[in-house]
Each structure stands twice: as C-alpha cells, then as structure tokens.
C-alpha cells in the first residue's frame, strides 16, 4: 500500500521532470538553455557516479577522469575527423571506458574510504595531465572553437542552443534508459548483492573482481559519453570543467538524490549544480563552504542519515573488532 503510493509519487515526479525538460527550450532564454544542456551532461556523469556509489556500493571521486577523457577525445575527433555526433559519442565512451580499464588494477581490491582516496587521486592526476599535455588539450587554456556537429549523417548541424540542448536531452534519456534496463537484469542484482555482502557473494562462487571491473568500465563509458555532450553543449573544454569541485558536487548530488536510485542521482546533481550557480552569485567565494555544509547536513539529516552508508567496506576507520565476538548469533531478532 505505502510502497505503491511511493512508486506512484516517483512516477509522477519523473513524468513532471521529463515534461519540464522537454518544454524548457521554449520557455526560458538561450543562456539558461545552454546552462541546462551543460547541467544535463553533468547529470549523466552523476548517473555514472550513482551506478558506482549507490548501486554497487563503490564510492568514487574520480569520475571526472573518464569524463575528461571523453570530452577531449570528442573535441579532437570533432575538430579533425568527423562532425557526426554519434561518432563523437562512440569515441568518447570508448575513451572513458579505456581510461577506467587502465585504472581497474588500482580500484579492484580497494573499498570504502581507501577507494575514495584512490579515485580522488585518479581524478586529480587526470586534470594535471590535461593541463600539461598542451599539444593535444590546449593546456589550461583549453580547446576553443570546437566545430558544430550533426547528430547523424545527413542531419543538419546543431547550430542553436535549443538544438544542442535537445540533442543532449535525447542522448541522456537514451543512455539513462539503457543503464536502467541493464540494471533490471542479473547485472543489477549482482551489483546490489555485492554492495550488501561481498564475502557472501564470493562464498556463493561469484567472481567479485570481475563485477567490480565491469561496473567500473561501464561507468567510465557513461562518463566518457557525458564528456562528448559537454563539448556539444559549450563548444569549449578546459581543465576547469574537471576539477575536484566537480567530483565533490557529483558525490553530493548523488548522496542528496538518494544513493540507490540512478534517476535520483541525475536530479540530485542538477539541483546541486543549480544551487552552486545561484550561490556563486549570492555569496561569491563562499560556495564551496556552503556546499560542504550541505553535504554534512545531507548525510546526517536525510532518511538514510546516521545509518551505515550503503557502501562496501568502511567509510570511516573503525577499531578492529575481534571476529569471534562479532560472529556470534545476534540475540535480537530471535523469535520466541
């Protein structure tokens, strides 16, 4: 009964959000439309963060790395090889997946706070490389004047903010749909089981490292595709798009949006980005502080706050408990 009501409410919210997104370019000015397109791209990165952090229980601060790889790969291909958006998307997703695959050995056995630190380092390293590799990335100046693209062969160029926005919206909707469909298969079941109890999953014969590597590479591909959308949306890309503040915003958005729902991750990230841009005008220079406080508040006040976060391993170091004591059957929950 209550579950049904919750589901109906979620459906309603989702439908309202989709309707608003479709109608947006006819109701707001071009500047806002461009801003929305960029926010959608970031929302797709948030989906990849939600896939790792929320669904699989593998918290990450490093999805800016495949995001950047996808963005630059897309910009380079767009400037020199092809003006077809689908090609850019494919190349960007492949670049994001390849970058994630390279980092698999670093993340495959790390969990909890250690994983957060490793992924943070990966993200920072990616920004540094991008800033230094001037011949390809334009260094800290970035790559300006990326030519306009067309979605498919034979289609017109995306010449207006509205067209670029609608293209971004269609791609994000399609990719989110694919992610949701895949999560309904046994893939989703195994990821959630790994989040709940990884040792039990091993004891049942599952190759957990393969699951971890797989979701990591898949999330890399999604973030890479988002990078391509960023390039379409702002026709410019620079290391400033991939800094630590972006990673932190994404994680905040995913925590606020409900760590276990992929759609919630997208909405949460959009809200956080909107809040940041608004705060930037109201309290120049203070935005990071306010967002930091919002993060702490979110973790503690939201319905899940205070309970153990649904991640594999510990987020906070704990005193090692003697296993023999911990192994005893819990007297609570014993039926009379």
């Amino acid at each position, binding site marked *: 009964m209550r579950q049904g009501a919750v589901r109906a409410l979620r459906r309603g919210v989702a439908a309202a959000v989709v309707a608003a997104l479709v109608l947006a370019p006819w109701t707001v000015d071009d500047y806002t439309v461009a801003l929305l397109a960029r926010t959608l791209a970031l929302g797709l990165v948030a989906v990849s963060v939600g896939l790792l952090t929320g669904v699989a229980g593998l918290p990450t601060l490093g999805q800016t790395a495949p995001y950047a790889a996808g963005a630059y790969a897309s910009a380079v291909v767009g400037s020199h090889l092809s003006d077809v958006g689908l090609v850019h998307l494919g190349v960007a997703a492949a670049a994001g997946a390849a970058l994630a695959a390279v980092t698999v050995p670093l993340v495959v056995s790390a969990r909890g706070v250690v994983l957060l630190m490793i992924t943070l380092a990966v993200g920072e390293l990616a920004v540094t490389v991008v800033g230094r590799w001037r011949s390809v990335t334009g260094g800290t100046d970035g790559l300006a004047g990326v030519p306009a693209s067309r979605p498919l062969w034979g289609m017109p160029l995306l010449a207006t903010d509205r067209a670029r926005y609608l293209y971004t919206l269609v791609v994000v909707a399609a990719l989110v749909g694919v992610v949701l469909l895949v999560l309904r298969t046994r893939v989703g079941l195994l990821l959630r089981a790994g989040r709940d109890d990884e040792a039990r999953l091993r004891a049942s014969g599952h190759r957990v490292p393969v699951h971890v590597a797989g979701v990591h590479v898949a999330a890399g591909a999604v973030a890479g595709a988002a990078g391509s959308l960023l390039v379409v949306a702002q026709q410019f890309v620079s290391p400033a798009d991939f800094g630590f503040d972006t990673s932190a915003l994404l994680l905040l958005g995913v925590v606020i949006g409900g760590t276990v729902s992929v759609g919630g991750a997208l909405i949460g990230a959009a809200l956080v980005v909107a809040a940041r841009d608004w705060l930037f005008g109201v309290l120049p220079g203070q935005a990071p502080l306010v967002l930091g406080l919002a993060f702490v508040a979110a973790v503690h006040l939201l319905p899940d706050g205070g309970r153990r976060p649904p991640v594999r391993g510990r987020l906070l170091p704990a005193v090692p408990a003697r296993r023999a004591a911990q192994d005893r059957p819990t007297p609570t929950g*014993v039926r009379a």
Partner: protein
Amino acid sequence: MTPLLSADGITVRYGSLAALDGVDLRIAAGQRHALIGPNGAGKTTLLDVLAGSTRAGGGRVLLGGRDVTRLGPAARARRGIGRIHQRPAVWSTLTVRENVLVAALPRAVRPGRWHPSARRRAAERTADALLARVGLTGIAAVPAGHLAHGQRRQVEIAVGLAGRPRLLLLDEPAAGLSAVEVGWLLEFLRALPRAVAVLLVEHRLDLVYALCDTVTVLRDGRTLATGTPAEIRASGPVREAYAEGVA
C-alpha cells in the same frame, strides 16, 4: 576411494595464538560429519580454511583429490563447497527469492540452446524449487533484511544449497533458533540427499548425535578424537575436555 575432502596439517596462527595447530580432517562423499569442541577451539577457523576465506599458514586441502589450497572462496564454491555462516549472511536489500537466485547463478546449468536469459531462467527454476523445499515461498518477495533471525537462517540454508554443493559447511545452524525451528532444521538436514556431504559445527550434542555418523572433537586448535557418536560418548577425556569448555 579418495575422500571428498581431505585436509592435512592445517595450521592458522593469529600472532602468538595458534587457532589451528596441525589439524587433519577427512570427509567421504555423502557423509554426515560433526565438528565439536569448546568456544575458541578453532571450529569456525577450520570452516574458513576449508571454504577458502581464510588462508592457512600451513597444510593443504584436497577436494575430490584435487589440491585447492591456493584457490579462493569463489573458486571453491564453484567446485562444490557450500557455506552457512555462524552469523546468517544474507543480502539484506535483496528479496528472499533474489537471494536464492543470486546464489544459484554461478552453477546454473545452461540448456543447450543459447538465449540471453537462459542462465537466469535455469537459476530461477532452481531457486523456486529450493524456496518451496525450505518453506520460504510465502515470503519470497520480502527483503531479507526485514526477516527475523530464524528466517534468515532458513534463507542462508537455501542460499548455501542453491550452488548445488557436494559439501555443505554448517556453522552452528541451531544457535538462536526456537525449539520449533530446531526441530525443522533437524528434519530438513536429515532429508538432504546423500549427494551432499555435511560438515556440521554444533554445540548441541543432541542434534549432532541425531544427524551425524562421524564426530571430530577439536580443542585449542588440535584434534582430540575422531570416531562414531558412540565412541565419542564413551571416551572419558573427550567428555571432560568438552564439558570443561562449555560449562
């Protein structure tokens, strides 16, 4: 005939403490073997070593004559070792049915014709049959995290069997169960097909004697004796050692 499982000279040390100190164990196919001993004797540690979740400092483990000492828990599970933990381990956000389904997937038999969901279908059939056998069909859609202790234990038993094990390791399955639930457990274990061998760690000797044909007594990480229930009951030193520990 080679035993289904044989462990030789298993040693596990935690700092200066020898949790296991040269333990030998042999289990024949289809056997009901009990492992008893006072708290801290090393029973759980021995199950961990057999299941591959703890690496022994010394000794080796053979399963069906093949050396599995260096294999991890997942590989051993795929070779037929099922495990029920001392504290029921279930996937708490998954439903009861999803729990059994996930456990059935690695060894689900794929029918000849290739189909994207053939493996899932096969696992679903295994899971539904098991749910009925264990008596969980009525709560199949309930998230396992919402269940009481006794029902979680039932779920984990179904999870342990879903991988079609040749050897089922049970760590104090009766602990924390009501008298009715213990009765159910005994009947269920008795009805297990002989294709599954059982290694049962249990403090309740009535269960041990009712189910098992061989008993090994462990104390301070060493085997004190192995024999039939009658032999173990008759052995004075064993009774003393055991009573001392549980008193």
